[in-house]
């Protein structure tokens, strides 16, 4: 069998140099490195195949399976896959920052055009997933990575799924709590790409607010937080909702008025609010799909989305610029003082 084993090891297309270990997850170790020759920055996810009792891990399988199929500027690129002894190596493009880092860094100012640009790129990525009938199921700012050129890339397909039939039963225990759509919170087993769209809506709100929009303190309370902010779903607004498993003993909150929403999102234009309302519509069958969202007027009204190369990038860079400025100022100050003391001495 030894000959066979040699034959089967898939050689990488390029040589990669691991430079430093940046993380160790449950099933993988992540290294930063370079592609030899092209000098391209890359990240290598090394998956230990022998470490698991049941063979290849499901998350690793999903990530590999879906990224192989999805080639899009707004989806993280799987540059290469190769095997070394009993390790599976996924070579991914290097993405130094994510949207969560930027949202949290209050030193970075977002203009409405920046928000529009990020939302547009997110929706383009989601649209590509959905037309390939792939649901991401874990969209959140932390999984929206930013390339050095400013492009936004959807990452982490460890929870993704491709439903085979429209009536394929799925688990409702997906998506990080704050970004989980109401149908999931209510425990539906049959859902669509609308769950991803909801997450995009909540991310849109977060980009405008600079703080999480529906931060439920626990899984149990997330539904209450959601309904309190957006109004309790009823049979009138969402036919069939009352037959979902989690729909019982709910507090009835009124939906927010247009003015209430205007006050919540002071910088938002009317078109921006329209889109937000569509993305966060309770009834998944009425909620916008990715094409409808991409065609919304918000994207065609002024201002134009910021060119991605002009978008705020890695938060650290801004800090450094500030630091340098302050250092320069301090030097100026010191120079002035020196001059003054010199003058005084002369005097």
């Amino acid at each position, binding site marked *: 069998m030894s*000959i*066979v*084993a040699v034959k*089967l*090891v*898939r050689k990488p297309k390029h040589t990669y140099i691991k430079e430093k270990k940046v993380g160790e997850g449950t099933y993988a170790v992540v290294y930063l490195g370079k592609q030899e020759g092209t000098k391209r920055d890359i990240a290598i996810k090394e998956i230990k*195949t022998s470490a698991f*009792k*049941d*063979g*290849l891990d*499901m998350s690793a*399988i999903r990530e*590999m*399976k*879906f990224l*192989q*199929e999805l*080639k899009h500027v707004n989806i993280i690129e799987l540059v290469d*896959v190769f*095997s070394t002894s*009993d390790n*599976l190596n996924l070579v991914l493009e290097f993405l130094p920052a994510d949207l969560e880092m930027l949202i949290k860094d209050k030193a970075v100012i977002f203009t409405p055009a920046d928000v529009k640009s990020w939302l547009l790129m997110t929706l383009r990525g989601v649209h590509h997933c959905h*037309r*390939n009938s792939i649901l991401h199921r874990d969209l959140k700012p932390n999984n929206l990575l930013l390339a050095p050129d400013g492009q936004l890339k959807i990452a982490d397909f460890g929870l993704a*799924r*491709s439903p*085979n*039939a429209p009536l394929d039963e799925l688990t409702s225990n997906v998506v990080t709590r704050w970004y989980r759509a109401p149908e999931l919170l209510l425990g539906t087993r049959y859902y669509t790409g609308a769950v991803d769209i909801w997450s995009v809506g909540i991310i849109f709100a977060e980009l405008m607010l600079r703080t999480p929009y529906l931060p439920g303190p626990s899984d149990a309370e997330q539904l209450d937080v959601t309904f309190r902010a*957006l*109004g309790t*779903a*009823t049979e*009138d*607004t*969402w036919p069939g909702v009352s037959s979902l498993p989690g729909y019982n003993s709910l507090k009835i909150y*009124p*939906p*927010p*008025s*247009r*003015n209430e*929403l205007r006050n919540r999102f002071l910088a938002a234009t009317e078109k921006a609010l*329209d889109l937000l*309302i*569509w993305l966060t*519509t*309770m009834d998944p069958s*009425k909620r*916008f799909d990715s*094409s*409808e969202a991409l*065609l*919304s007027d918000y994207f065609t009204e002024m201002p134009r989305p910021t060119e991605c190369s002009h978008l705020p990038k890695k938060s650290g860079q801004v800090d450094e610029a500030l630091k340098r400025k302050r250092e320069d100022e301090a030097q100026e100050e010191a120079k002035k003082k020196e001059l003054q003391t010199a003058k005084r001495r002369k005097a």
Partner: protein
Amino acid sequence: MTKTPDPEIKVTKVPKTTSTSVRISADDLYRQSTQFRYWSYRKQDLDKLRVQINDVGAEMTAQNIANALKSEEFKEQYVPGSIEPLTPDEENAIVTFYARKIPNTGQFFQMNSQIKATGIAFFRRFYLVNSVMEFHPKLILHTCLYLASKSENHFISINSYSKRIPKSTPESLLRFEFDITTALQFSLMCHHPYKAMYGFYLDIQTYISDVDHDRLNKCYDKGKGFINELLFSDTQFLFSPPHIALSCLWEADNELISRYLKRRFGGNEKKTKTTAPENDKEDEVNGEKDEAAESEAAKVREVTFDDMRRIIKQCSTIIKRALNPTITDARAIDKKLHYCMHPEKTLKRKREDTGTPDPANVKAKMESTQAQDPNQV
């Protein structure tokens, strides 16, 4: 959401078809899939590939014989030429024979048709990269199904899986999992014709609004049966899932499907090629003009009614040709394969026949009977 944010009033929903820009078609998307890029061939290329794989397997056999010849005993008794490598057709037959075991095993674990189909696809793809003379199908079969079941999101622990697979251990089942994944070029997404067939099922009702539902359902069920059978043929390597689905429906009820195709594609028929207009003469379908298209036709962008019928026709001929080797044939091939992989066993077998007492015999006997009876897997 009863008051202001009722979107029906506030904003007019954008109709999905107003944009003038060119949209990527489902077919364009399919062309980006790994199934199309890595696992779709023209007929002649597929045949060539099988010959190449077979050459590698034959080399392996030659090497096995060379190794065995190092033993004096074998050297003395070996009749040159008595161990022949399998032919490409025999390889294909034995792979198909084993592949046909997957549905039963899958049924046992309550796997849906998608999982079973993926398992079969993995198994058959593996043998477009490796020869059965390198890896005996028995070593690969159940691992392919296990990997397929994980890939299709139907998790079973290896212990409970192994318990139900005769003569297996968790280790033996996982031994080649990584090698299989590598042979599959890490591409695990499989598009089967079931989904496409369901799409046609709905589309037919749109285009023939007064369709007889009993007849349509019958056609659909029969079509699904054809798909199940086609998993063991080369159609998946030669045609796209919608083509296969449509051909299966056609085989099930060609009158109905012909009516549907006329309505669906006949209306704005575009003559992109210089094919003689066949129009709707039913008998032409079974006519003789098929050589030009091959699966190349699958790569033509503008789909015309004529193209459609040509593809269906080719695909249908394969439907009737799905391999189903008999147990007797499979046993003969399996025996031959056993000696390719273990040339020294021919001797032991001889010795056994002459009744030489040898403790190794018992084991050899067990193994050879095992090899001869593929049914026991």
